[in-house]
């Protein structure tokens, strides 16, 4: 069969179309120009979002991927374009987010000569990608791009970087789309898990007096939300979530006991220490979840289900580890799970919930220390009440993130998008843009702090140019709040370079032609949050909050989970 010759840039675009890509986030530059020239003709098939910084492109691709489950794609030029992607790649690797980044590279004959805008992109990105590859011949494009998408979304998803030399973009080639066929051994690994072991696990769950299910992001990635719900309901087992697993289980469900870890709810952390059986699904026992590993879950038998077997026994020893897709493994476990009342276990949980309500939540949800000032918890709670658990919450990093995790309500899966593992400030706004483009029918609210917002506020330009409807709520305490909290608690109140003199965010929003409002008093909160959510276009709501507010409860870094600071 004779096929028409096209250039490498068009071959790349055809491959993207064949992979089902509808949106790419990018920023043009010298070496990527042949690609952008072809993209000019592909406007009807691929929507290109022009960001204001490459880091914004990769975070937007992450937000898109996390909101939809599809692979996020971003494009940048060689040299500085590629190096600006590194933070986002590292973030995507930590949080198992499927992203394909395409960067240009200088002409292959000039590689290694310090050519204008040359950087060793492949060398630099090795530690922050799941796979990377440099294309120097246009004939490789079809096969490599197909593999890139397969690698990004298969198994434990992650970022892939493809570097494309300028000559490979202009070289003529016969294009034929080839689907990537993985090696047989890798294919089998994904398909099988131990059926009889799963039946034993069901028996262990039935025999447990204090069982507990921990859900991580793996549940969302594998689409196992209903399986978790089924097991929890059929066995009457409490469910707790990691930060990344939030929204996998409806937060208003009676079996949901809260969010675990350093700033998690009291009940989940104490439950972990008391439980005699933990079913950990799609999570990796990160240090923020376990606290002191040697004292973690001392009484529990741990059953660990994950697609990535290098997570087994890495930090916490498990008694049973099952490698496999969470949804399939849970499907094998669930028929054997039987209903048990376990009144003692549930009264323990209710007791701890009550303590948190009385000692933490009631304090967080009232104006700070006799003033009329708004607390961060009140702002997030207002959004949760008025939004009714429907919006996608995209957070930045720090106190705003922890309050969002603690006080948001989620009815639907893929509703919490946050930078968990890497903790990337500046993630929120661009990720929100990506999320909105992925799920245009859903309300997307970015909750950010004054510090993180200013790390990527140039992306307001992206919102303006692309007409995206993203709601932004800045919790402004004029401090890098989380660092300030640690300075107060662990560094004797020496507030070393954490206070911020901020610009007028209203003027900034107006300059970008974005509707905005600023509130300081608690009585205005509900009406303005409602106004923001009802607005048909982007809206920036600045909530001025108290500087002294801290996130509690808190398990200090390296302490066991039952060592909880309440104030």
């Amino acid at each position: 069969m004779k096929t028409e010759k096209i250039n490498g840039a068009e071959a790349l675009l055809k491959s993207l179309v064949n992979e089902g890509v509808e949106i790419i986030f990018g920023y043009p530059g010298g070496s990527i120009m042949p690609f952008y020239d072809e993209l000019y003709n592909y406007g009807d098939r691929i929507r290109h979002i022009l960001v204001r910084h490459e880091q914004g492109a990769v975070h937007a691709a992450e937000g898109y991927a996390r909101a939809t489950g599809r692979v996020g794609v971003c494009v940048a030029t060689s040299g500085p374009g590629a190096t600006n992607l590194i933070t986002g790649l590292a973030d995507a690797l930590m949080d198992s987010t499927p992203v394909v980044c395409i960067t240009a590279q200088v002409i292959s004959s000039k590689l290694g000569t310090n050519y204008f805008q040359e950087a060793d992109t492949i060398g630099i990105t090795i530690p922050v990608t799941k796979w990377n590859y440099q294309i120097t011949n246009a004939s490789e494009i079809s096969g490599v791009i197909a593999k890139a998408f397969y690698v990004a979304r298969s198994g434990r998803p992650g970022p892939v970087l493809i570097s494309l030399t300028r000559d490979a973009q202009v070289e003529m080639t016969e294009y034929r789309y080839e689907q990537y066929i993985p090696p047989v051994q890798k294919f089998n690994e994904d398909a099988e898990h131990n059926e009889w072991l799963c039946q034993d696990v069901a028996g262990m769950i039935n025999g447990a007096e204090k069982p507990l299910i921990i859900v991580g992001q793996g549940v969302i990635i594998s689409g196992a939300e209903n399986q978790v719900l089924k097991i929890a309901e059929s066995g009457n087992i409490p469910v707790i979530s990691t930060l990344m697993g939030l929204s996998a289980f409806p937060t208003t469900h009676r079996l949901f006991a809260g969010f675990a870890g350093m700033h998690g709810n009291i009940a989940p952390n104490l439950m972990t220490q008391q439980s005699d059986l933990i079913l950990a699904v799609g999570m990796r026992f990160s240090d923020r979840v376990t606290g002191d590993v040697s004292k973690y879950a001392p009484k529990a038998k741990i059953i660990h289900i994950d697609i990535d077997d290098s997570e087994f026994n890495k930090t916490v020893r498990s008694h049973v580890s099952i490698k496999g897709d969470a949804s399939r493994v849970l499907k094998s476990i669930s028929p054997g799970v039987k209903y048990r009342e376990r009144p003692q276990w549930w009264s323990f949980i209710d007791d701890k919930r009550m303590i948190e309500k009385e000692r933490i939540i009631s304090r967080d949800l009232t104006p700070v220390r006799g003033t009329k000032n708004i607390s961060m918890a009140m702002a997030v709670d207002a959004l949760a009440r008025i939004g009714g658990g429907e919006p996608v919450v995209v957070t930045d990093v720090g106190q705003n993130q922890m309050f969002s995790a603690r006080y948001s309500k989620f009815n639907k899966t893929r509703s919490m998008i946050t930078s968990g593992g890497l903790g990337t400030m500046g993630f929120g706004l661009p990720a929100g843009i990506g999320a909105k483009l992925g799920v245009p029918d859903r309300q997307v609210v970015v909750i950010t702090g004054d510090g993180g917002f200013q790390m990527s506020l140039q992306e307001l330009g992206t919102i303006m140019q692309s007409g995206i409807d993203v709601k932004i709520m800045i919790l402004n305490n004029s401090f890098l709040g989380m660092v300030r909290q640690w300075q107060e608690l662990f560094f004797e109140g020496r507030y070393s370079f954490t206070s911020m003199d901020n610009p007028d965010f209203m003027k900034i929003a107006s300059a970008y032609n974005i509707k905005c409002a600023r509130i300081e008093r608690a009585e205005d909160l509900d009406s303005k949050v409602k106004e923001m959510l009802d607005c048909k276009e982007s809206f920036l709501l600045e909530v001025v909050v108290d500087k002294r507010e801290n996130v509690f409860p808190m398990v200090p870094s390296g302490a066991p989970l039952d060592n909880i600071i309440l104030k």
Partner: protein
Amino acid sequence: MKKEYILEALIDNQISVLNRITSAYMKRQISIESLKLSKSYVKGVKKVVISSHTTEEVIGHIVRQLNNLEDLHKVDYYLPKRNNHKNTTDKTGY
């Protein structure tokens, strides 16, 4: 306890795989005592042999992480003495 461990891997003939293997040592601050890259019995597949001093826990984790690499066919570790051979790539062993 730290001992000498030998890691053996079969990799595709691609530029970044060797780099990914050595970076698994680098990020744990383990210095590589010797490294050999040679042809294998399969065309286009190379054999890497690395010796280093570390604990079994760490080398075991390195092997399990490398097992997930693309373009890597098989990876294994053992003690230099032949009769102490240990196979860790058996996926059903968990």
